[in-house]
């Protein structure tokens, strides 16, 4: 599908001058200064600006009465719910979905309990494998049985960047099926990094080394290449000693080593000036959680600006969390709080305040991307954000009406600024639509039984 390059809002000259400053402290408090942007003008790229995808997750359902918009005369005529008020200034980019169900999670032959199934299927559209992860009520399951949408996209657009994708976490430390949203493939979850300082070091570590650090495979004296040569040999020598089953494990690891070597050989764009290191924060602390969130969002914006990656996910905690949000006066414990019934109006207000905060974080992130010029517009113009939650509402555990929300029009591929109500659509179809919107051809995504084609009326 071809579509003309949309000429979106061009930045006025005065705003560009403002960006020339090394430090940005926009309202809301940027924690990481954006690098100087001039060197990142699109002039040195003959190709059109890259497309990007970000997944966003927070757990335990939303509060339906405050989430769903009020529909008007047409799809683009709607009133935002309380939770989405912070996104009002980005209204034209929003696509709010209702009636998209996680059919695959609800299959009777699926494994695990609702949180496990919900989160497993959220971005993969797949069932859970059998396994030994136990949920609160004795149900057992393994990992999700398929690739997640961000990785499917990264498999196409993530091969030219130093990092194929970035998985960032905010208090997302549980490592079992209810704590993972991104999968490189069936049974291959990708763990998030929860500490912004570590994320920074990972992204910019080489920047502190002497320049021109890429491995030169043709240089027989290149130390790092020689070491990896020997390591690869050791893999080859061990392999025949192992059973077939052990060999698969070994092969999978070796493949990752090769990937890493390829990436190191590609080097790093040296036109990216790294920002200042984020402050030391305690990633496990509820007091630091808002600052950790902002630090991650800032780092991701920089990573996009420097084209270090084009695919990312932001995971706010996990299905069985006990976290509190004291800065919005919510002292209930995550998962338990979400099980409050409607009579507990105080608890439901807490849940809504949490959801509003998530919308504010998203709005902040969108603002950051909007402030980075790219092509005729901004980085935001070429970025798609998909926000999801593993169940519709906490007390019902319903896997119908998964609260999906898209931000962005993928360079004109999507007609955004609408509230779309479907009748029993499958989340696999929504995920397939995302692939198509990013210009990736695919016939199906997720479980084939539940994918019939992209959602109707979504693509331009």
């Amino acid at each position, binding site marked *: 599908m071809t579509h003309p390059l949309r000429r979106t809002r061009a930045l006025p000259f005065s705003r560009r001058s403002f960006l020339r400053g090394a430090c940005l402290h926009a309202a809301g408090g940027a924690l990481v200064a954006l690098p100087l942007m001039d060197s990142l003008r699109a002039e040195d790229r003959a190709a059109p600006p890259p497309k990007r995808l970000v997944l966003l997750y927070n757990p335990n359902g939303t509060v339906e009465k405050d989430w769903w918009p009020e529909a008007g005369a047409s799809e683009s005529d709607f009133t935002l719910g309380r939770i989405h008020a912070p996104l009002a200034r980005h209204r034209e980019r929003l696509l709010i979905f209702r009636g998209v169900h996680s059919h695959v999670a609800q299959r009777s032959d699926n494994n695990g309990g609702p949180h496990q199934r919900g989160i497993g299927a959220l971005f993969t559209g797949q069932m859970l494998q059998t396994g030994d992860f136990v949920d609160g009520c004795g149900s057992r399951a393994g990992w999700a049985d398929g690739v997640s949408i961000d990785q499917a996209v990264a498999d196409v657009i993530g091969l030219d960047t130093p990092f194929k994708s970035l998985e960032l976490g905010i208090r997302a430390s549980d*490592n079992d099926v209810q704590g993972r949203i991104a999968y490189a493939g069936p049974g291959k979850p990708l763990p998030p990094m929860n500490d912004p300082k570590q994320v920074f070091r990972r992204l910019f570590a080489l920047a502190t080394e002497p320049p021109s650090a890429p491995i030169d495979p043709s240089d027989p004296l290149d130390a790092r290449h020689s070491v990896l040569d*020997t390591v690869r*040999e050791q893999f080859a020598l061990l392999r025949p000693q192992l*059973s077939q089953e052990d060999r698969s494990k070994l092969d999978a690891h070796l493949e990752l080593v090769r990937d890493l070597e390829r990436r190191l050989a590609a080097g790093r764009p040296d036109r990216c000036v790294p920002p200042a290191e984020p402050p030391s924060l305690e990633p496990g602390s509820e007091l630091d959680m808002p600052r950790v969130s902002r630090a991650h969002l800032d780092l991701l914006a920089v990573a996009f600006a420097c084209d270090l990656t084009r695919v990312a996910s932001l995971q706010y905690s996990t299905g069985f969390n006990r976290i509190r949000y004291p800065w919005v006066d919510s002292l209930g414990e995550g998962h338990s709080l979400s099980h409050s019934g409607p009579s507990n109006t105080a608890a439901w207000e807490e849940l809504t305040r949490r959801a509003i905060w998530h919308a504010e974080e998203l709005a902040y992130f969108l603002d950051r991307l909007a402030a980075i010029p790219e092509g005729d517009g901004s980085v935001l113009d070429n970025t798609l954000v998909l926000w999801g939650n593993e169940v519709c509402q906490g007390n*019902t555990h319903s896997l119908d009406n998964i609260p999906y929300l898209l931000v962005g029009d993928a360079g004109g591929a999507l007609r955004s600024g609408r509230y779309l109500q479907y009748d029993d659509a499958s989340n696999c179809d929504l995920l397939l639509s995302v692939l198509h919107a990013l210009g990736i051809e695919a016939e199906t995504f997720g479980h084939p039984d539940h994918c019939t084609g992209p959602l109707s009326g979504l693509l331009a």
Partner: protein
Amino acid sequence: MSELPRPDAPPLFGEARPRRCGRGRKPARAWSRLGWSRLGWGCVGLALATLGGCEARPELTPSRTTCDPPAARRAPLRLLTRSEYDNTIRDLLGDDSAPSRAFPPEPNVGGFDNNAESHLANPLLVEQLTSAARELSQRAVRDHLDTLAPCPNAADADDCVDDFLGRFGKRAFRRPLTASERTSFLTLYRKAAPTLGYEAAIGLLIEAFLQSPQFLYRVEAPLQADVASAEAPLPLGPYELASRLAYFLWGSMPDDELLAAAEEGRLGTADELEAQARRLLADPRARAQVSRFHERWLGLSRFETVVRDTDEVPSERVNESWRRSLLAFVDDVFWSEDGTLADLFTSPVVFVDDTLAELYGLSAGEGSELLPVTLEDARAGLLTQPGLMAMLAHPNQSSPIHRGVFVREHILCRPVPAPPPSVNNTPPDPDPNATTRERFAVHTKDPACATCHQLIDPLGFGFEQFDELGRYRDEENGHPVDASGEVRHAPDPNLDGPFHGAAELGRRLADSSAPGQCLSRYWYRFALGRMDSAEDACTTEGIAQSLERAGGRLEEILIALVRSDAFRQRAPWIDELEAGP
């Protein structure tokens, strides 16, 4: 809508845990043809087998667990966990920088981080391992070249490298290098040394060692030739056994003595292995490892998210004090010369530092040092430990549900069964101002909820004497505390029935074999890196029996494990069988 199980009938869902029988008898599911009946349970003889009860089984030899079918299981590759990596680096390079801090966490299976099937490499981990290898190797040659690869005479560099590959290589791979492996490393040295010099070249060798799979993975079952039968388990090789023993009891690589024992064939019998095990247990490294087990068995990582609304102490400090206090209690019972499993449930000792002394109104402690005190308030054992009570609570109230679930999962190994699949139904909408017992009544209204909750809530109510800060109380909001509880559907029917207060429950548990059975299963999982299934009951029950014969001395669980077939043997690979004799 599914039926509620009858009060005297076993649960409908999940694993029906059989009762224990006497020696030579095996428990069996009791299905009376006449319908549910307590008469159907019991240790009756073979003739009444159709009525259910117990069937004859092969005699257990006193000091070995021989199981039929064999207890040996598959032994897949095991990737080093973060703590294993750190400990191995410490013992191999003398570097205690604990580099795995930035590594991603291992999958949590059954509370443990060392599940062989689930712990796999991922892109982030490989990246971290690569940069750690570079940093560690550079530090190693800078600080410890004289120990790792001494070469007083530069002219003998070739001999030095030879020595190095022999000695360091054997320790890094936990077995002697093969000739091809040696050659590969030598090639790297020869490439690097002329331009970079001896020290830097050794550094590159170490960097390569630390990324090699023979270092990062524990190869427990390399292919063997001449494997005849699927039924006969294979013994683990001596080096494989040495690693398995060291990683079990130390969480780290074998020491030189253990490697020598492997080389000299002194790990072949259960007695020889026991001797090494006792030696390892006497080493300080075993203390840290046993603590690590206790932490995982009890799920103490929960303290990371416990918050308390108290003005008395800042939350982060008190969490850490509780965690250390609880761990100190369990560790102390384990390592005390006369500590037994029964003590775990009856000892009134609590370890307090100054933070906890302040919280519980005791005379001030000695700073952060933990000192044992005896509290005078209905404490008896693990279940009344203030740290545990605080962990299993909400920020501002106790939680019978958390406490009930804890006992079922961690003490009885009888978790609540999975609920039946159900359509979306209207969930209960409890009055937020109701008491916990009133809200429980709501749980029982919906049979789908009651299935789980009738096993949990009555059990948890017995802990109401301890509030969310682990303090004893006999009054709550002006009303006397009701600490009456009830155990239902325990694996040991002697445990079933009403009780008053957690101390009484503790005494009942001290007299029961169920906790020993459960703890044996947790140790099994920890040692072998796999979840146990019904087929492993023979092994874990044998271990529990050894524990009983030893009067409940907890160390004996580990000895019995090490002596067992499950530890010393493994099942053949399909490839080995297909290859034929």
